């Protein structure tokens, strides 16, 4: 039993490492993860930095400190999408057949992809933490807060990766997964990623208030701009778990259907 678990863990780790290398070697997968969110962060903080002076804007040290969490979540959502595209490319070129013909759990193939996406999430978190530190953001909860941010961002990446994987397994086409790219921005703008809900107009404000993404963003933002509040962190973890379980369940169903039809 333990031997089998170790063997499966080795497979997941090897496929995860391949996934990270694949992202690094394919610019069209790597660019959206870092370049777009960093550019958007620079444009927004440069252009709308005085938003923090608005009445009722939450008390933050700087607009960059407020925006970092949004940039991280944007990046991991795109990482989930890129992971889905990469999996769909594997399906298109028949590489998944090679994996499915090996004596391993087929779900291990999906978990390997998600492990890679989670590792990318951790790297993304560190990238934006570094940007924050370079540009003078003081993380209110210090090193512990940064470590917690890495955990939340990495877990979010895995959760969004599950949805990307499910769509890839269901459609088997990279173009379909890629087509969801704009949806990432719609969901982001209808959350508190880039603007506080209390300053939004209706119905966007209500949508943002209940958008699970807002809970994740606030969970990541809190250690940057304020002190930990257990309730906020539990909400963030619950939102990540909810999205993650939903994505993994969808992936499981899509994988079983694919195994039946051999598609």
């Amino acid at each position, binding site marked *: 039993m333990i031997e089998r678990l170790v*063997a499966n863990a*080795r*497979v997941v780790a*090897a*496929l995860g490492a*391949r996934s990270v*290398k*694949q992202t690094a*070697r*394919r610019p069209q997968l790597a660019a959206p993860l870092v370049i777009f969110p960093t550019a958007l962060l620079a444009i927004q903080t440069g252009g709308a930095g005085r938003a923090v002076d608005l009445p009722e804007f939450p008390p933050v040290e700087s607009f960059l400190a407020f925006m970092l969490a949004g940039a991280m979540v944007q990046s991991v959502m795109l990482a989930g999408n890129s992971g889905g595209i990469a999996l769909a490319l*594997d399906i298109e*070129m*028949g*590489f998944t*057949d*090679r*994996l*499915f*013909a*090996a*004596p*391993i759990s087929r779900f291990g193939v999906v978990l390997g992809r998600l492990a890679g996406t989670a590792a990318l999430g951790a790297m993304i978190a560190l990238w934006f933490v570094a940007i924050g530190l370079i540009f003078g953001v003081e993380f209110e909860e210090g090193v512990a807060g940064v470590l917690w941010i890495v955990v939340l961002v990495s877990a979010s990446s895995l959760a969004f990766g599950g949805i990307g994987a499910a769509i890839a397994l269901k459609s088997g086409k990279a173009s379909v997964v890629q087509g969801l790219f704009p949806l990432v921005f719609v969901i982001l703008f209808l959350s508190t990623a880039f603007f506080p809900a209390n300053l939004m107009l209706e119905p966007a404000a209500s949508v943002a208030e209940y958008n699970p993404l807002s809970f994740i963003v606030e969970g990541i933002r809190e250690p940057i701009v304020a002190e930990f509040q257990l309730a906020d962190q539990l909400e963030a973890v619950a939102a990540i778990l909810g999205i993650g379980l939903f994505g993994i369940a969808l992936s499981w169903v899509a994988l079983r259907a694919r*195994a*039946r*039809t*051999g598609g």
Partner: protein
Amino acid sequence: MPAIKTERLAREFAGGITAVDGIDLEVAAGEIYGFLGPNGAGKTTTVRMLTTLLLPTGGSATVAGHDVASEAPAVRRKIGVALQEAALDPLMTGRELIQLQATLHGLPRARGRELGDALLQRVGLTLAADRRVGTYSGGMRRRLDLAAALVPSPEVLFLDEPTTGLDPVSRGAIWEEVEKLNSEGTTVFLTTQYLEEADQLADRVGIISAGRLVAEGTPAALKAEVGRPHLELSLADGEVDGEQCESILSRFGRPLPPRDGLHLVELERGASEVGAVVRALDEAGLAVESLDLVEPTLDDVFVAKTGQHLEGADEQADGESPP
């Protein structure tokens, strides 16, 4: 115990499309079985079922003694698979791919590295091992695919059109490796649309058309079923006496209708009579200008069984065979 056995194996797809329609076959351990048929005949669907990538919708199949539907993990432990189009990640290096394959088959890291080096050497890719697969030629990709399929030291090796699209030299290299593997005891199930490939490599050939097995046997037996070798000859200018020629040829077998100025005869006793035919014509004062002994091909078998030619038959007749 046969290496592969199927009973009324069938696969129907959505929309009522029957890709494989009740195939019965038995492949003995240590045999090279050639599965020959045109595109869309059902070869790949059969291989996908036998390699557990696709569930049958009818009948049953066992590979290395395990049922492909109910004992799929056990089947996967015993097989090596090189699928059509060499499904390789162009961003990985050859070495990375082989080592990933070793991990998938549960080999310890050190053993995987050692085996990877040996297999890359075996297929002549040591120098290219650290290059990305995207930079490999078609032949190199197929050889890498073959090396990856050998990682688990398979009892049964499935090769789905391993040489399609390759130049004659690369094709020859793959053939050589397949023969070597078989001589080491590996059972090989090889699908192909190339007549010569099946003829050269396979101990037995199964011909599939429209999802059904239409003929099966050794290449020699299948060809013998459709007729004897025939001789095609032309006489030197000014010496064309058709009637006299045919009268002489009829002593050696059944004359066939002349074609494009050639005299044809189906030799009763095969190639051994060629010398006697030439001597007889010479004694009658008829000088032979050209002479060709034409053996029946697997395409003739295919035509006899299905009424159609196999795709690629003409291409091979034009000299596509490896050196």
